[in-house]
């Protein structure tokens, strides 16, 4: 029995009492005992030529019994003329008309195979068990990325099926260097997690570190990639995300080519990418599909609105309550006039509106689609127009809050947008208490915190701080593709060459021909 007592056994429970015998009855009884009260487990007993008794165990609707019938059972049941009664031939010789069958001897592996959706064939007279990999279950079709849509780029997005997701990546990188290491995490859920990396680009230390961190996870279940993300992030208590997520296979492929690791988790369309820097999260897949001039411009817009989403309300509070002499006279008159009937101090007004807006935003995500329109009407009409007309809030504040709201959605990474939405509130309190001085203090705190963050050894603010000049071309700008001759510093130092020569070296050649 000791042979079955290995580590993997923990996954499916205790297998100590498994009868080590070639008899069918005892083993079948053991399986039936193990799967007692599992209404979806099917035990199908039959006999093939020569009266050999067999049993097939599978999960209903996860195992394609029609395929199994067609490819295995029918040949076995009918073409039994030359059956000589030697059971072992069923397992040892490759008589079975289909590939992928494995013979198993250990009950825990067999159990796992059944739970994975395979069928398990037991035959009287042989200890071995045959796994029939005809797993088939309902899955969603590949659809357009709902949260990271692009205009010019590919539209495919990951789905919940791990195998589909893997093919989506493999179809983009057809290289033997693309490694996909499979791990099982979750004592009860036994969720498959695949580490994907390019072994010639990704630093091996990064792979080792990733495995070390994931190896520490011992949890009963993994239902989404965030379970992994929180476990392996460097500073989990920071408001800033330190691991990128995406639902786009092209984003994953591009990151792999830059030496990063992707973690694909079964049953979720969201994959993880590490390491990540702050500036990577301000980039969208679209940047690389649009002309580089337009893409650079859009990146600058993002920087501007990143600052807006963090600072605009607090700046408004600080200036109106502490430093009104900074406002041009005519603007001051307009702002002051619009605030004239408002009964609240600016800080109070801003907090009220921002929280109302947060609620509106949360409601619009959670609300059933059929009544979503009602909410937007209520939000726009009541909180916007009516509140101003009633003199509860000023029109200037409504403009500020809406602009801030729009700004926070410009950040491509939703998690980063969330953290800025959150940090906005302490900044507003600081501005309300100490004016621009408070804002400056808050900014310094945030900056120092970001400087201290790391994601798998990559400084969070790289390549700006610490500065890596060569990588700035893809940070502040989006350099044209023919200019990106080298990979960013996330790639292993030994393999930084992306292009051996500029894709536009033909310009030079043309001149040479003419000579």
């Amino acid at each position: 029995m000791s042979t079955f007592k290995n580590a993997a056994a923990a996954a499916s429970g205790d297998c100590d009492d498994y009868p080590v015998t070639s008899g069918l009855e005892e083993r079948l009884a053991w399986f039936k005992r193990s799967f007692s009260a599992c209404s979806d487990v099917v035990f199908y007993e039959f006999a093939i030529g020569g009266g050999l008794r067999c049993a097939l165990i599978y999960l209903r609707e996860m195992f394609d019994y029609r395929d199994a019938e067609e490819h295995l059972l029918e040949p076995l049941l009918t073409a039994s003329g030359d059956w000589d009664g030697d059971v072992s031939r069923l397992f040892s010789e490759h008589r079975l008309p289909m590939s992928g069958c494995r013979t198993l001897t250990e009950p825990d592996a067999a159990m796992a195979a059944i739970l994975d959706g395979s069928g398990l064939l037991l035959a009287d007279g042989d200890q071995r068990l045959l796994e029939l990999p005809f797993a088939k279950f309902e899955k969603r079709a590949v659809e357009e990325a709902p949260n990271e849509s692009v205009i010019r780029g590919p539209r495919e997005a990951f789905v919940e099926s791990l195998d589909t997701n893997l093919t989506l990546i493999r179809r983009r990188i057809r290289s033997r260097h693309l490694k996909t290491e499979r791990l099982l995490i979750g004592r009860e859920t036994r969720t498959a997690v695949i580490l994907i990396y390019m072994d010639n680009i990704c630093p091996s230390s990064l792979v080792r570190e990733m495995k070390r961190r994931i190896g520490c996870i011992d949890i009963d279940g993994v239902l989404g990639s965030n379970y992994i993300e929180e476990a392996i992030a460097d500073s989990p208590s920071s408001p800033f995300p330190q691991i990128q997520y995406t639902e786009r296979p092209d984003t994953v492929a591009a990151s792999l080519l830059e030496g990063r690791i992707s973690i694909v988790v079964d049953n979720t369309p969201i994959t993880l990418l590490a390491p990540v820097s702050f500036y990577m999260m301000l980039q969208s897949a679209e940047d690389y599909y649009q002309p580089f001039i337009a893409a650079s411009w859009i990146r600058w817009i993002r920087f501007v609105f990143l600052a807006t989403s963090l600072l605009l309300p607090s700046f408004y509070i600080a200036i109106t309550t502490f430093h009104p002499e900074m406002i041009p006279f005519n603007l001051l008159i307009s702002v002051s006039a619009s605030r004239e009937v408002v009964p609240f101090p600016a800080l109070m007004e801003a907090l009220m509106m921002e929280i109302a807006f947060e609620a509106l935003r949360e409601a619009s995500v959670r609300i059933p689609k059929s009544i979503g329109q009602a909410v937007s009407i209520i939000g726009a009409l009541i909180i916007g127009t009516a509140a101003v007309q009633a003199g509860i809030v000023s029109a200037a504040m409504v403009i500020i809050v809406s602009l801030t709201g729009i700004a926070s959605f410009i950040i491509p990474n939703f998690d980063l947008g969330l953290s800025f939405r959150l940090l906005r509130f302490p900044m507003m309190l600081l501005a309300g208490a100490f004016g621009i001085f408070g804002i400056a203090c808050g900014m310094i705190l945030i900056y120092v915190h970001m400087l201290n963050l790391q994601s798998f050894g990559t400084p969070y603010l790289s390549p700006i701080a610490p500065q890596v000049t060569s990588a700035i071309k893809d940070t502040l700008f989006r350099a044209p593709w023919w200019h990106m001759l080298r990979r960013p510093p996330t790639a292993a130092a030994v393999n930084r060459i992306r292009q051996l020569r500029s894709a536009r070296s033909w310009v030079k050649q043309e001149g040479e021909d003419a000579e």
Partner: protein
Amino acid sequence: MAALGRVAGLLAAAALALPLAGCWSSNELNNRAFVSVIVVDRTDEGIELTLGIPLTNRLIPGQTGGTGGGGNQRPTAFVTRSGVSLEDALQKIQGDIPRRVAFGQTHSIVMGERFVREGIEPVLEFVARNPFLRLNTNLFMVNGLAKSKVADMPDSFERFFVTVLNGYVRNHQILSTTVKDLMFDKANGGDGALPILRFDGAMPKSGAGPSVGTSGCVLLRKGKLAALLTPEEASAVRVVTGQLKQYTYSIQSPTDGRNIGFYTTSFHMEIKPYRTKSGLGIFVRSTSHVGIIASDSTIDLNKPANIERLEQEIKLMADKTVQRVLEQSKAAETDAFNFARYISVQYPREWKKIKGNWRAYYKDRLEVNVDSVIQLRRVGSSTESLRTSFLDDGTPEKP
């Protein structure tokens, strides 16, 4: 924990720096009365201070009088109190206003003639001490009692009186003198030129008060009125202070005495001190590019000689006016153009010797050399006047 300690340290540092910032008390916008213009007059009781404060509650968008001036209500309140000193008057005003008086938005100070005659030193002192009043606050003078004129003026072009004044300064339509200009050095402190605001008769339509305009200027000596200059001379003051940007004028043609109109397109002022045998002199040279805007004359502008004659003619006029203004300032013993600044920079050693009695030196001994360089750049698209080319067909005009 190390990170936590760092954060705590930073917080402590920030808390310690707080008292330095001087921004403890927040004050809502609507608890402030923003003074847009300060009007100062001297009366028999002492100083009369008037603060022009925009009434934002009359400008609420979408409500009565929302666009400002839409109703009969003026969007500005003028609050006047008298006191023995400015501070005294200010305290009286503050005591009567439910909001806190805020000087952060004050751009202009308008003073009455009597106040200027007796010396504007209290205003300079007040501005220099108040942390919210800027040193580049513009100063203006009004003939007579300033308060009654400013307060009665209907705001025809702009919502606020102060916007009119800002517009004058921004567009270089008036001599701009700020508090800072009067506080350069002890040797010529309080010397300068103050623009005069003119208030013309009643408005034709509403019968309301007079409308504002620009006028000449006064020369100050030690902060007191020393000489009155005409509008023409005021523009010469603007020439010397380098503030003249665009100017339109006409001279008589040297050939037939008819008017030719000119405008200045670019103007550059150069002031340079120099040594003479007996002491110091100052060179005041202006370079201006002019164009012809209108011509009644038959002068042939294709001839370079004629162009030169015109340039000479303008130069003579310019030199004469500038010379006249400089002489007036010499006579009044006021270094209104801040020549002291140039001399102290260029000849610090000499400056040390003469700065004790600089005003007297300026009056009696400083050699002033005026030169104007006029370059006629554009003569217009036609070289002949409209009358010559189209209207004058040779037949004698009927009387």
